[in-house]
């Protein structure tokens, strides 16, 4: 019996990103397979966030070629795969005027997801008692938990974490680890970036980015 080859989720070949004449990423080669947890460390301004936004197909490359979840970079194909990607970024992507519960309910309604899962997911991340608190009044750590709950609700195949563990207590960091395990165990992959390599200890592969160039650590 012949086993089918495992298709990588992300393939970048010689990708370059330039904005306003500045090279943000140069000759990036990257392959992310199902089950991978790829950690990328680097100083501020080295291109970590740009790399994540590129993987999320939120920016298009100026050079090179690649695919994300089978969609060719820089083409309309990426439009159809974005809902399979989850991003926890620097700035919380939440509606501050809505409550914690309403934010997740909004996500469920937009995505046509089962709304009865909202409360159980909030309880999983320890926010069952804060469900009716406005996000504007929630602490940064609590907002991070809401974003983790968002990812648990949506269950993306490709999870992207931008300094996700920064400033979190041990419990919340444990939630990120559990989320990572959940994604990889269901055939997905995680790409996480941090300025602090210590935050990347659990990764299956560690890379370093400097001045927009990616290298093995």
């Amino acid at each position, binding site marked *: 019996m012949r086993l089918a080859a495992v298709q990588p989720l992300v393939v970048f070949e010689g990708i370059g990103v330039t904005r306003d004449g500045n090279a943000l990423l140069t000759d990036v080669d990257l392959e992310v397979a199902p089950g991978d947890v790829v950690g990328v460390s680097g100083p501020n301004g080295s291109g970590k966030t740009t790399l994540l936004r590129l993987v999320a197909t939120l920016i298009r490359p100026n050079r090179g070629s690649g695919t994300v979840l089978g969609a060719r970079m820089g083409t309309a194909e990426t439009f159809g795969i974005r809902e399979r990607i989850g*991003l926890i970024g620097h*700035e919380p*992507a939440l509606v501050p*005027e809505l409550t914690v519960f309403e934010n997740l309910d*909004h996500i469920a*309604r937009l995505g046509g997801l089962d709304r009865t899962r909202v409360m159980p997911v909030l309880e999983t991340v320890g926010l069952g008692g804060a469900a009716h608190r406005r996000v504007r009044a929630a602490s940064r750590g609590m907002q991070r938990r809401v974003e983790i709950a968002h990812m648990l609700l*949506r269950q993306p195949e490709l999870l992207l974490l931008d300094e996700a563990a920064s400033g979190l207590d041990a419990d919340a960091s444990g939630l990120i680890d559990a989320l990572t395990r959940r994604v990889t165990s269901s055939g997905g992959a995680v790409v996480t970036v941090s300025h602090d390599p210590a935050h990347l200890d659990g990764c299956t592969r560690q890379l370093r980015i400097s001045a927009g160039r990616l290298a093995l650590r």
Partner: protein
Amino acid sequence: MKLLRQAREVARVDLVVEGRVGETLRVIVPFAVAALLVLPLAQGPNLALLRQVGAAVFWTLAVLFGMQIALRQSANDTDARRDFYALSGVDPAARFLGRTVSGTILLTVFLAVLFLATLALYDPPVAGGDLPALVLAVVLFAYGLAALATLAGEVSAGLRSRGALASLIVAPLSLPLVLGAAQTAAGIGRDAGILSWSLLLLATDIALTVVGIAVAGPLEEART
């Protein structure tokens, strides 16, 4: 179905947020009503003149303050929110439609309050039988302005001078809307034909909707 579901949800949340922030009802509407007082205070109690210019003042303030209301929503969109919608699989056309619908509802409420205030202060010649046609003109105007502002917000998203650019797009392009709505309202008062002006409003609304839906996706891709 997905498009309509997402559009309805975008509109619903916009209105919930507006209900809690209250920028339209608590800030812009009182300012617009206060602006109605400027002419009577400057002119003194010249009731004949006030009756004559009431409609013109109404439409002038409707455009000026209506633009602020209509542009407010897209101005509040952060990059994180845009990324969130993109990664949640929200069709850009659904976002355009949802924003347009919520903007239409807010503008209609604003125009209703402004109309009542204009009636009280200027006493323009309006008969009870004119109201259905007037309501139609106001709603078509509100929809068109909301669609235009949403479109302008999408075109200028991510640009440094987006606020100024969006206003510059909306102001000249709202001309057919203002003309259609004002002439429809004036035609009602004079018992003149209003069909051609109402059709101008309707055609502008349809054109803005078609363009908005058609360019929403390409505009989002152009930002990447």
